[in-house]
């Protein structure tokens, strides 16, 4: 298969070369364009051409020499009062009380398009001063020479919730001396991400060539809890997350003869220096007879480099044939060393039980150590070719072809050391330099043929067919590390039944066929209907939630009786039945069926320039039914059942919103909004895991509503005084958990918006 892919790439590379050479030939064949001088306008025309100071919306602004400035900044103070679950409030919203820079914008434009350093400078920002997310964007340009766009964003994440990793929530074996816990889950975190994108384009309006340089940094840090199953107990470990990436890119795009080209070379460098360093740490199970740490530290310094190249060409030939080709190649390489040292007591050590096992509890773990260096690389190539033939003014036919391949080559070197003592006995087990390699190979071919026909301005249709073929292969080799004396993995051929000691050599293929089509119709001047549908089938899936036999339908209607009013309705249905067929044999008893129905509507009305309404209602309905087998134990019963059953998920979400904007008087305007999500989830259905068949039922019945009101009072041309109030109300149904994480938050605020260059 590898050689096939190589051959394919050779052919494609050859094709690219031919295209480039052909482009060169085409350029050579073309007459060199002679610049034509701009005709000198006649005197009268020249007079007309003189710029005249006009006051338009675009020209609004304070005079500042060669520029006009339009700017506003809103600063104020937000109050906060939260009743109920503060952790849930902070996880959802995390607005805090205090002074704020709510929002700002600054636009500086040259009057005649001949500014000095720039013709346009725009800076906007929002959410600074303690809000959980803030952003600042900048654009500066002098179109003849450069265009610079930058953004900086900061997100604060806080998650301490019952429903993130909380096995203790109910799971409480009798051997635990800790009662069922309703406290927050074990994977809480309080982290921060900072992201930036800075792109400079040289000669942005040049038709022939434009150069681009870009830089995107990303920083992620903060404390977070993780869990670790070790020594016969589960540990909640506080880790310090710290990772960063820097993405540099440069490129050029332009036009050579009839061909538009675009090239970009990028370099991303990622490093992860997260670590855990803890003193005495008890496990989740507080029983003193089970394992606890006296020290624990772990680090996994990782350095990843991704070098990527994108090259694309495009041409419209005689206004009839639109050709686009793109090749993307990336090469990722990751180097790391996993280091973990731990000491403790009463360890059920990692290897063995019964005869030959290491000394069990009560014992002292003198030192447990993992030292695992490794390297993984992933070459990834993506080639796309699209051709659209504009056969007539009304008929277009397109073909889009894709090849994608990647290969993940991972290799680790395992060095394990565990030394325990019990009284005077010391038992040390170790091994070193045992390699394990895992290779994943993937390739995909996809071809889409489609057409669209425009009957007239009011009616058009489109139709198409897509074929896809995918192949994945996983190969595991090296040592089986599940014993005190690791041995090489048994070859796949020699494995009589699946086992952890078997080398894994899994191959899956998947072929899909899909038909799609739709239309746009305007049965009346003010009424437009969109419809499209897709039906596809597959002979296999890589995952049981993948598309196997699916039908998606979407219909949208927009009716605008006049320019002040419009009604929108849409219905979207998706059905996917997956009988988990293998080699043509249907295993219908093990199927997965997922259905969703969405209804959406909205009504927008602007009766006057002083009043506007926007309102809408959505309904989302989801039913998912997957046949599963699972393990189930009801304490205090000791036996664990292993029934077949159904995993069912339900969503019945109603969403309603209304926004009203009213100018109550020349100086006073009002904004009011109300939004509510109400999901009835599974209704009165309850899980029956021990039934016949058993059912695991889940959903998220809750309501989440947020009204907001704001009064804006114009003090003078430069200042508005704002008074606002937001309210958030979150309520969970008891089905979600024994301790609903409900909260009510009141967020009053007052602010001043200061304007420069405001329109009267």
């Amino acid at each position, binding site marked *: 298969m590898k050689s096939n892919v190589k051959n394919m790439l050779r052919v*494609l590379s050859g094709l690219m070369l031919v295209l480039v050479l052909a482009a060169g030939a085409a350029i050579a064949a073309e007459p060199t364009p002679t610049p034509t001088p701009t005709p000198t306008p006649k005197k009268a025309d020249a007079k007309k051409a003189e710029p005249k100071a006009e006051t338009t919306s675009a020209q609004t602004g304070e005079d500042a020499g060669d520029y006009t400035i*339009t700017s506003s900044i809103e600063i104020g103070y937000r109050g906060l009062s939260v009743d109920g679950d503060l952790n849930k409030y902070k996880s959802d919203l995390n607005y805090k009380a205090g002074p704020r820079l709510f929002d700002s914008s600054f636009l500086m434009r040259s009057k005649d398009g001949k500014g000095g350093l720039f013709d346009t400078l725009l800076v906007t920002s929002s959410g600074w001063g303690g809000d959980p997310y803030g952003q600042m964007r900048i654009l500066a340009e002098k179109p003849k020479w450069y265009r610079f766009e930058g953004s900086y964003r900061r997100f604060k994440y806080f998650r301490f919730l019952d429903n993130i990793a909380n096995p203790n*929530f109910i*799971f409480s074996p009798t051997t635990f001396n800790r009662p069922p816990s309703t406290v927050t*889950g074990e994977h809480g975190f309080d982290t921060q991400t900072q992201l930036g994108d800075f792109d400079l384009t040289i000669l942005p309006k040049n038709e022939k060539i434009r150069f681009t340089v870009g830089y995107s940094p990303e920083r992620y840090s903060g404390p977070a809890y993780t869990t670790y199953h070790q020594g016969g107990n589960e540990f909640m470990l506080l880790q310090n997350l710290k990772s960063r990436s820097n993405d540099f890119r440069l490129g050029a795009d332009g036009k050579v003869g009839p061909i538009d080209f675009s090239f970009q070379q990028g370099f991303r460098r990622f490093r992860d220096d997260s670590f855990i360093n803890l003193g005495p740490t008890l496990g989740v199970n507080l029983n003193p007879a089970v394992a606890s740490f006296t020290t624990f530290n772990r680090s996994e310094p990782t350095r990843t480099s991704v070098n990527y190249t994108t090259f694309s060409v495009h041409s419209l030939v005689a206004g009839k044939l639109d050709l686009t080709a793109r090749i993307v190649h990336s090469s990722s390489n990751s180097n790391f060393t996993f280091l973990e040292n731990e000491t403790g007591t009463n360890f059920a050590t990692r290897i063995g039980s019964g005869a030959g096992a290491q000394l069990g509890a009560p014992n002292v773990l003198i030192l447990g150590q993992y030292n695992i260096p490794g390297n993984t690389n992933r070459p990834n190539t993506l080639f796309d070719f699209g051709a659209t033939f504009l056969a007539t*003014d009304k008929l277009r036919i397109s073909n889009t072809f894709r090849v994608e391949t990647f290969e993940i080559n991972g290799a680790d070197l395992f060095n394990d050391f565990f030394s325990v003592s019990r009284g005077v006995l010391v038992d040390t087990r170790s091994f070193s330099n045992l390699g394990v390699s895992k290779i994943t190979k993937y390739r995909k071919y996809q071809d889409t043929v489609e057409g669209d026909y425009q009957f007239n301005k009011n009616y058009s249709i489109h139709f198409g067919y897509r074929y896809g073929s995918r192949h994945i292969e996983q190969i595991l080799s090296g040592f089986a590390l599940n014993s005190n004396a690791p041995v090489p993995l048994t070859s796949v051929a020699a494995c009589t039944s699946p086992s952890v000691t078997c080398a894994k050599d899994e191959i899956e293929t998947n072929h899909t066929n899909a038909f799609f089509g739709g239309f746009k119709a305007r049965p009346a001047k003010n009424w437009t209907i969109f419809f499209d549908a897709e039906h596809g089938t597959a002979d296999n899936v*890589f995952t049981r939630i993948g598309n196997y036999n699916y039908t998606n339908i979407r219909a949208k209607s927009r009716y605008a009786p006049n320019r002040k009013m419009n009604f929108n309705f849409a219905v979207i249905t998706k059905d996917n039945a997956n009988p988990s067929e293998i080699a043509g044999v249907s295993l219908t008893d093990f199927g997965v069926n997922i259905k969703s129905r969405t209804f959406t509507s909205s009504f927008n009305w602007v009766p006057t320039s002083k009043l506007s309404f926007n309102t809408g209602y959505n309904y989302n309905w989801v039913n998912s039914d997957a046949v599963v087998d699972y393990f189930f134990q009801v304490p205090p019963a000791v036996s664990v059942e292993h029934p*077949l059953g159904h995993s069912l998920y339900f969503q019945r979400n109603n969403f309603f919103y209304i926004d009203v904007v009213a100018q109550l008087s020349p100086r006073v305007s009002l904004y009011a909004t109300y939004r509510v999500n109400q999901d009835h989830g599974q209704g009165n259905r309850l899980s029956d895991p021990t039934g016949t068949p058993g059912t695991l039922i889940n959903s998220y019945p809750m309501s989440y509503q947020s009204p907001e009101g704001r009064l804006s009072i114009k003090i003078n041309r430069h200042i508005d005084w704002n008074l606002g109030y937001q309210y958030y109300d979150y309520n969970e149904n008891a089905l979600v958990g024994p301790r609903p994480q409900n909260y009510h938050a009141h967020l009053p605020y007052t602010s001043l918006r200061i304007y420069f260059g405001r329109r009267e």
Partner: protein
Amino acid sequence: MRLTKAIKTLLICGSVLSMVVWFTAARSSQAVSPTVTNPNPAPVIANADDPGYVGSDACKDCHEDQFKAYSHTSHAKLSTIGSWKGKVTGCESCHGPGKNHIAEGDPTKIISFKNKTSKETAETCLSCHAGKEERNNFRRGEHWRNDIGCTDCHSPHSVTTGKNLANSNVLVTAANAEKPGFSSIRMLKANDPQLCLGCHSEVKPAFSSPFHHKVLEGAMRCSDCHNPHGGFELKQARLSTGGDAACIKCHADKQGPFTYEHAPVKTEGCTACHTPHGSANPRLLKFAAVNQLCLTCHSVDHGVGAVEPSGPQHNQNAQYGNCTACHIKIHGSRTSPVFFR
């Protein structure tokens, strides 16, 4: 093997055919020039010394409002840029030569877009704007397919600004139109995301869920993840750092490569498990409980998909049967084949 051969043959024949058409057409294309009678008014990068062209100022007398608004757009400033000198810029670059229209006052003597289809109008725009990769696939994109053209989102004549009215403190709303923003620079009819949500209202509930990407709050834009001008990816999603999913741009720690990758992450994509716009689930998972999501694939060990969990340690007697309490590194691990660390 057969498939590979067939594709090779198809490619070679296709490329030869393309070359023939290309060269033939390239020669004939040199004769193409815009005329009023051309039902499809693109492309219109004509020579300014054509006597039919009279310049934008001539349009001002009758179309004063449009001229005022238009004269402050980047379209109007093209004539100051070297590479555009000598070419028709201004009103006539889209509406065609105006001499006859002015002389006779006949509205049929100028190209009007009132009765053009979205695609025809788009062709005019593409005659200048097709040169960037961002728009290379417009003619194969979802918007094209559904007959949504450039002027459904962009206003080529002017930057529209609204009145100063009260607006939300945390939501990007239509009411704050006077504040200059990027929508005015890009000549959009409304701001992103308001513009997108006007048609794609089905995603509104997700963005108002307890957990969502902060699009309505203005910290992200629809166009950060989607390319509205079309693309080779499904849902017109963007790619990041080469061939990776758009999500990887910000979620860099999920990029890998990992020695032990959770295969669906790369083969099926992030949306196999996540609902990217928003959800009541704090991890934006498709289902409320993580164990349901995992069991949907990791069940009934018959070779398709994934290995079935075994043993009492996988007891599902938990409200939030938390697979990820142990399988921490679910996107991929560098040292654990079962994603423990």
